[in-house]
């Protein structure tokens, strides 16, 4: 099956441009754009882990290694498209337009951060696995019904493909030719369970065959390849040709969450050995160097700007107003029924508010 679904690549690990067809897209401007976003994601992600270790936020879900897949896909979206991320796709959300301090707020247990953006259509992270795939289908069907050209993208991991909602969401989308991109990041592990124990199929892309839709397998560490694959799938969706299943093959460098110890289930040393080789950010640095585009001053400047931005977002998170316990009561329904009203009064009376 791997030969039927070959790994799409525009730039190899050594930083060589391997696609003649799309060579003209790999401009200095595009390289810098992707590089900036990946660096921004990594800086945010590392800060997230550090804040968790310092006890300043709660359990954090790192995505280091998957920046290429998340940036490449998110930047392919149009302004009004819908994004349905999981808890590991806050990188994609950030690249699409999530506000940094809202992401930090979410990780510090604050409901105010659950909506990643007030302007972009990014749903809060879906925690129950694969349950948001049908939502992407429904939002896309609504856009079809309204006659817009908007599309939806659903993010999910390799483990999600074992869930019923993976099948149901893609099946319905394929029947109605809904404008959706089902974007899988296959990092080989669902917490500790390796993909060989997750599925008997060799690839995830091949599952598209059973829905009569295109399946694309792409090197998820190659931001340009991911961007192209998602762009093509979105174009196809907007043309009315229906959904596409994309498998971006990636490596998660770190743990599942900050509460997880990957050394219990995989050879973490091996990951450390190969990480520089496979790193999506270093790959772009190699392209820059190979093509005489290296601009050290720009990189240093960008790094500094991102640091400042992240520092400010952390401050914003930590300076945020105290959480309001009334919030848990006030948004269950548009108007709280007597039950919730009574319970709220009881709590507020007890807490002396």
């Amino acid at each position, binding site marked *: 099956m791997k030969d039927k679904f070959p790994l799409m690549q525009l730039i190899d690990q050594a930083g060589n441009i391997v696609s003649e067809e799309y060579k003209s897209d790999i401009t200095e401007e595009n390289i810098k754009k992707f590089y900036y976003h990946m660096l921004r994601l990594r800086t945010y992600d590392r800060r997230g882990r550090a804040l968790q270790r310092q006890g300043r936020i709660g359990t954090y879900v790192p995505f280091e290694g998957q920046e290429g897949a998340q940036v490449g896909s998110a930047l392919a979206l149009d302004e009004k498209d819908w994004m349905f991320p999981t808890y590991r796709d806050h990188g994609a959300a950030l690249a699409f337009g999530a506000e940094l301090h809202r992401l930090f707020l979410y990780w510090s247990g604050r*409901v105010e951060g659950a909506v990643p953006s007030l302007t972009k259509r990014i749903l809060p992270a879906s925690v129950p696995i694969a*349950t948001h795939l049908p*939502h992407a289908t429904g*939002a896309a069907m609504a*856009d079809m019904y309204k006659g817009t050209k908007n599309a939806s993208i659903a993010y999910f991991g390799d483990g999600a493909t074992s869930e019923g909602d993976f099948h149901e969401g893609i099946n319905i989308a394929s*029947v109605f030719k809904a404008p959706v991109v089902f974007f899988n990041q296959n990092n080989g592990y669902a917490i500790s369970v390796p993909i060989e124990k997750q599925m008997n199929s060799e690839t995830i892309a091949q599952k598209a065959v059973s829905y009569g839709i295109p399946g694309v397998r792409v090197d998820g560490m190659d931001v340009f390849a991911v961007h192209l694959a998602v762009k093509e799938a979105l174009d196809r969706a907007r043309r009315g040709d229906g959904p596409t299943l994309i498998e971006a093959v990636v490596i998660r460098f770190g743990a599942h969450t900050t509460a997880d110890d990957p050394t219990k289930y995989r050879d973490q040393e091996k990951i450390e050995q190969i990480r520089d080789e496979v790193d999506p950010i270093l790959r772009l640095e190699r392209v820059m160097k190979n093509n005489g585009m290296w601009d050290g001053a720009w990189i240093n400047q960008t790094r500094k700007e991102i640091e400042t931005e992240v520092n400010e977002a952390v401050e914003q998170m930590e300076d945020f107003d105290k959480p309001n316990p009334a919030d848990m009561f006030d948004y*269950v329904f*548009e108007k709280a029924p007597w039950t919730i009203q009574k319970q709220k009064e009881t709590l507020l009376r007890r807490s002396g508010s």
Partner: protein
Amino acid sequence: MVMTDNRITVQKKTTKQNKYNVIQAIKDGLKTMLAEDENVLLLGEDIGVNGGVFRATEGLQKEFGEKRVIDTPLSEAGFVGTAVGMALNGLRPVVEIQFLGFIYPAYEQIATHVSRMRSRTLGFYSLPMVIRAPYGAGVGAPEIHSDSAEALFTHMPGIKVVCPSNAYDAKGLLIASIEDPDPVLFLEPMRLYRGTRKEVPSEKYTVEIGKGTYVKEGKDVSVFAWGAMVPVAEKAAQALEAEGISSEVIDLRTLYPLDKDIIAESVQKTGRAVIVHEAHETGGVGSEITSIINDTSFLYLKSPIKRVTGFDVPVPLFSIEHDYVPTPERVKAAIKNSVEF
């Protein structure tokens, strides 16, 4: 009002009435809303060409088209999830679950998304959607087709649960549910689908969610029921009139949020309460009504509250389902027991 020759003439509204059974009233409610609001659309299994296994949507696809009345794949979690996406994106989907006993695959969608979206986004996103489902035993249906799982949903924060017992309420509550800004589980008593007919106005009207109603006034005991148990309670109450027991029968109509005022008002008048539901006893909505009586009317009680319910067993196959579902005889016995305590 019609303006003629500078004089205002009040024109008497001639509301057309139709004698409808419950299923016809539901179809009329759906049709009313499809015609009124282009954001309303229907999704479910066999609802289009076939018009629904109970004919609740008969002719609607022909009238409103395949984009409004959608035959979905056999995929309860999938199309409830699809409706979530549609509602997020500005539509007002009405989903039909063919039988309430088939809702379980969609339970995760309802528990983790349908009921939580508003809360987890502080109202930034909300889901105005309706899940319709025929429920209950007594029609000789196959296995799993006869469940009364309302308590699984009244326990779940973030979704309203309504259950009409007659054609008038069915249309009015359905329209109220479709117009509600929050998700509503709309339970339809299968056993009453083609039972008694009632006058149903052909125009649009609503019955308020969260309000019960008096079916029969009485002074000795309050009998609470909903859906298919309303006529059962009524029958028992009527029969006991001859024995000099005056029962008040209340159709609660909404199971979340319960109408605590009507419960308290009636119990404070009669001092006695009997609760009838066909769902299993333990953890049923009856326990919640008992609790409301306890909180509001404890000192008015003259006898312990009685429950007449289905048993804590899976709804049995239909050869013995009539032994499972409360009967007028069981209700009569409970009322007598309550009054003669």
